[in-house]
């Protein structure tokens, strides 16, 4: 008699169908909204405290011209800050990797800037740069800058030792090492940082608008709060969230287009 006898068949595990995978979270969200609506109707919560989802939807449609008028400014500020903040971070990271003295000199300053709360620095910048787009873009850029700098430095240095030895044997120049080795291998790190930056840039722009602006989603949030137009406040919040989501998704799409070499992560 054998100690171990094997007669087995392993069937591939069945994955949930795509429809089902979308259906479950959708049902979850619908459930929350339904409970929200019901709670407010049953307990007669006043609309200026918490508006029902139906009221928010109604406001969204009625106030669409107002929302549309104000979203443009926030898009310009968030996108402008996103590009400038990330561009400076990427260039600085490249500089740091090639010049350790520069890194030791400038990195503490970058950390120091990071430690200043954005809420505290916003009024200073508004005083310095006036009431236009400039201070908002700078604040959005500041908030994007640090995570990208840190990730990008890590990405540029996350090169296998043997890959650097290979470049040495091939007598590659520093420029060739940067463009053929360091930059491509840093891309996954860069995209991780860019994804964080998308939401941050919208936050930065809105916070900056609170301090001093006559247009933008932040301005609309302040005004609707003061005037107890809670429906509009919630609708504005939804727009701000959709804006951040849109920026995030555009980076996800860009990542898919650029990074084509990694194997698909094993799906659960």
């Amino acid at each position, binding site marked *: 008699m054998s100690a171990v006898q094997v007669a087995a068949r392993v069937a591939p595990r069945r994955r949930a169908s795509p429809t089902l995978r979308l259906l479950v979270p959708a049902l979850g969200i619908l459930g929350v909204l339904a409970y929200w609506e019901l709670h407010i109707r049953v307990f007669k919560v006043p609309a200026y405290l918490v508006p029902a989802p139906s009221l928010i939807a109604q406001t969204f449609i009625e106030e669409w011209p107002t929302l549309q008028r104000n979203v443009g400014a926030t898009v310009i500020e968030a996108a402008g800050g996103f590009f400038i903040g990330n561009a400076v971070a990427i260039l600085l990271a490249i500089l740091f990797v090639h010049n350790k003295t520069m890194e030791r000199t400038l990195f503490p300053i970058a950390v120091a800037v990071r430690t200043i709360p954005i809420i505290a620095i916003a009024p200073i910048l508004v005083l310095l740069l006036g009431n236009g787009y400039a201070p908002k873009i700078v604040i959005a850029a500041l908030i994007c800058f640090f995570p990208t700098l840190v990730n990008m430095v890590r990405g540029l240095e996350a090169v*296998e030792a043997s890959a650097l*030895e*290979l470049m*040495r044997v*091939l*007598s590659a120049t520093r420029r060739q090492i940067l463009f*053929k080795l360091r930059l*491509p291998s840093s891309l996954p790190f860069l995209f991780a940082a860019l994804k964080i930056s998308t939401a941050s840039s919208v936050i930065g722009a809105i916070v900056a608008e609170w301090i001093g602006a006559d247009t933008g989603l932040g301005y609309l949030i302040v005004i609707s709060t003061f005037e107890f137009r809670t429906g509009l406040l919630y609708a504005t919040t939804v727009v701000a969230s959709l804006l951040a989501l849109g920026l995030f998704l555009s980076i996800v799409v860009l990542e898919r287009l650029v990074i*084509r070499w990694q194997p698909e992560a094993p799906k659960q």
Partner: protein
Amino acid sequence: MGITFSTSSGPLRALDGVSLAIRPGEFVSLLGPSGCGKSTLLRLVADILAPTDGLITVAGEVPASARRRRAFGFVFQDATLLAWRNAEQNILLPLEIAADARDPRQRAQRLLELVGLAAFGGAYPWQLSGGMRQRVAIARALITEPQILLMDEPFGALDEITREYMNLELLRIWDATRTTILFVTHSSPEAVFLSDRVVVMGTNPGRVKLDLHVELPRPRDPTMKETVEFARHTAALRRALVGETRPA
């Protein structure tokens, strides 16, 4: 054309009084336990590291100038392929860096054929097996037509069956290119099977313990591994290695 060295590099004295001369076209293996400096020696030849003192010449030149005229092909233990380049683009990397534009794609295709991957030029590293990745790495090392191929445990990460197959493939490739090969391994049978000479190195500091000429005829055949002659060679290497394999 050949390599000679006599080095004693310190202060850690990774290598001490290593003296070795390699003839053109020769297949020489460096065999020894971990930490005997065999990889260091390979990197000294390739001018990845610089010796503290001593002299290394490659075809009468210092390693740095040999490196600059791209006399070396280097194969690492892990294939070190760039993940964002397919097999062909990886093989073309040395030509791009050397700004050598003499029909590169044709040369890459010839090498893909030589290493038995003619149909895999468009495959990315993650789509290739360990053995296939190492073939691409060998093709990449050969594209500059190097005088000397330096191989640092190139098959150390492969399974036994793949390894034996890759050994045969390497001999076939060596036969086709007739380049000088300096091959680092810690497998005595692999060293005997492949080499004209096996140099056994010892630790603390790294030094040459035995320089064995392999008396087996070429072409080599895997059945030779079952012969008394083969066993005699591996036994000699084992005796030289014993005393070096103290518990870590």
